[in-house]
């Protein structure tokens, strides 16, 4: 039993790192424009299907699809940004409905292009088991975990040290003041959506190598990413990582100790508990009340 729990904790941390990438993309777009992109999970899904496309057509390893995924997902992300930018009235409400509609379009476009079958990598290299004492993982999971950590580090550095990263933070903390300092907010928002798209590309390809994907996964990922931002607040990268790992571990433990049917329930209950009991998130984010 102890080994099972250890294994669940371990698997939960591994999948949690990819959830963190998804959630960081959502948080970046939210920080820049104060809108929740309800199609963000579909961007990740799109990248996962690019990996499937490349692997099934060329026989290359799924990670060879990264350039294609980056190109396609970034293009869609920018198109999405331009559409959201066209909204004039009732921005908060209408942007929710618009991104939700784009999510429906993307899910069904993927359904039309790739059918509803579940897909995962066929790479023997990625599916090989690796053991760490009593716990096991697929090599793909370890690579995805390492990749996530590296990307989070890069993102942290970018936000902290680069001009664009600092401008992103400036716009998200005070748009007006940032404009007065000579920052063009629209340009910065475009960059935020580009980076969010890039994170989604890596997350999608990683997800394909360690888990199964099907069109309905996109919506579920959006919800998970949103849950994580509620757990962590949108303030900090380590917070998002911890929130994501908490969600991954909760899900994995539920599957191990109860049943896989309850996996989604566990995430939702965790979400509502934090929302109601700790309205500022586990790590003290900014207020989310109207």
């Amino acid at each position, binding site marked *: 039993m102890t080994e099972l729990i250890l294994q669940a904790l371990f698997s939960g941390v591994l999948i949690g790192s990819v959830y963190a990438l998804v959630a960081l993309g959502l948080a970046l777009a939210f920080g820049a424009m104060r809108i929740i992109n309800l199609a963000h999970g579909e961007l990740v899904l799109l990248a996962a299907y690019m990996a499937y496309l490349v692997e099934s057509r060329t026989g290359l390893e799924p990670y060879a699809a990264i350039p294609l995924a980056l190109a396609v997902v970034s293009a869609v992300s920018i198109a999405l940004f331009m*559409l959201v930018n066209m909204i004039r009235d009732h921005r908060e409400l209408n942007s929710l409905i618009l991104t939700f509609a784009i999510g*429906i379009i993307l899910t069904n476009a993927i359904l039309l292009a790739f059918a509803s079958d579940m897909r995962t990598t066929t790479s023997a290299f990625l599916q090989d088991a690796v053991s760490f004492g009593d716990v096991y993982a697929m090599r793909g999971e370890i690579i995805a975990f390492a990749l996530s950590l590296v990307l989070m580090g890069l993102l942290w550095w970018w936000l902290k040290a680069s001009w664009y990263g600092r401008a992103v933070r400036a716009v998200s903390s005070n748009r007006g003041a940032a404009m007065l300092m000579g920052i063009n907010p629209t340009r910065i928002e475009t960059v935020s959506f580009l980076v969010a798209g890039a994170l989604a590309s890596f997350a999608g390809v990683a997800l394909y190598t360690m888990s199964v994907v099907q069109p309905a996964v996109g919506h579920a990922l959006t919800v998970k990413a949103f849950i994580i931002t509620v757990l962590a607040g949108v303030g900090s990268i380590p917070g998002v990582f911890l929130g994501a790992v908490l969600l991954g571990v909760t899900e994995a433990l539920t599957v191990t100790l109860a049943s896989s049917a309850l996996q989604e329930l566990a995430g939702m209950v965790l*979400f509502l508990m934090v929302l*109601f009991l700790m309205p500022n998130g586990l790590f003290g984010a900014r207020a989310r009340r109207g």
Partner: protein
Amino acid sequence: MSDTASSRLLSGRSLAMAGGLVVVGLLPLAAGASPYMLGLLISSLILAGLGLSWALLGNLGGMVSFGHAAFFGVGSYASALLAAKLGVPVLLAIPLAGGVATLSSLAMLPALRLSGPYFALAILAYAQIFRILATEASWLTGGAAGLQRFPGLPTVFGFNFAERHGSYVLVLGMVVLCALIYVVIRRSYVGIALRAIAESEDATRVVGVNSTLLKTWMLMLSAFIAGMFGALNAHIIGFLEPDYAFSGIWSVMPIIGAVFGGYRSVIGPVFGAVVIYMFDQVIAKSLIPVGHQILLGIVLAGMVLLAPNGLAGLVGRIFSRTGGKHHARA
């Protein structure tokens, strides 16, 4: 309430609108629509009722819900179980089911403190939780296998509601009734206060309006209406399973319909739901058998971008341009 007050609330114009709805609604019967067509129209009217309840919360309460399936599913199970296990007459079980859905909405009261996306996603979480609970509580609901043995709509005074024409008239009547309730509330003090809250919640609280209480009422009423239409649908379909009763369809279709028709008007969500559902079932499905919802997504995105007030807003704009008086109402 005095006569003058009630006549102000239910003006001739809104009664004319209700009458118009009934007349237009009865046209398919007069034209001798096929049972298949009537079946589609019944489903579209169920969605119209659900759309009204969504728009009531979205327009008057200022809250976008992505989880109206929660109330719809609770209502459908409550009514089926009340009728099957306790022998409650179906026509009584339907409003009772609305009451059960209202009770379930009380569990969501803490979510009312949340703004925008947080509220929308919290309601979505409830819908998921209710679906999983309905699957797990198999001693009561029959679990994933579903619920089949429960009474259909009855025959009252020789009028058979179980038959297509009867069901259609009943659902149409319910939609018109709910539309009138919506109109009355919108014109009342409560409606004025809610519109003020939508403009500025803080300012409204300062002048002594209990905004949380008003929002609570809107949530409860919205749940009641959604629950009743869930119940109606259950007795008409005669079969329930958690994945159907709590399906995302019941959350998504009312939004698309209401946005298409114009969720800031009363007639918009009704008209929008009927048009969108018929478009989806008759046109989209024949064009793209699997994945036909992509067309709905395109319609939804297009409407938000090009006509955020829906068809009702477009029509209003045309009338005001041609010199007619148009009062924009929130």
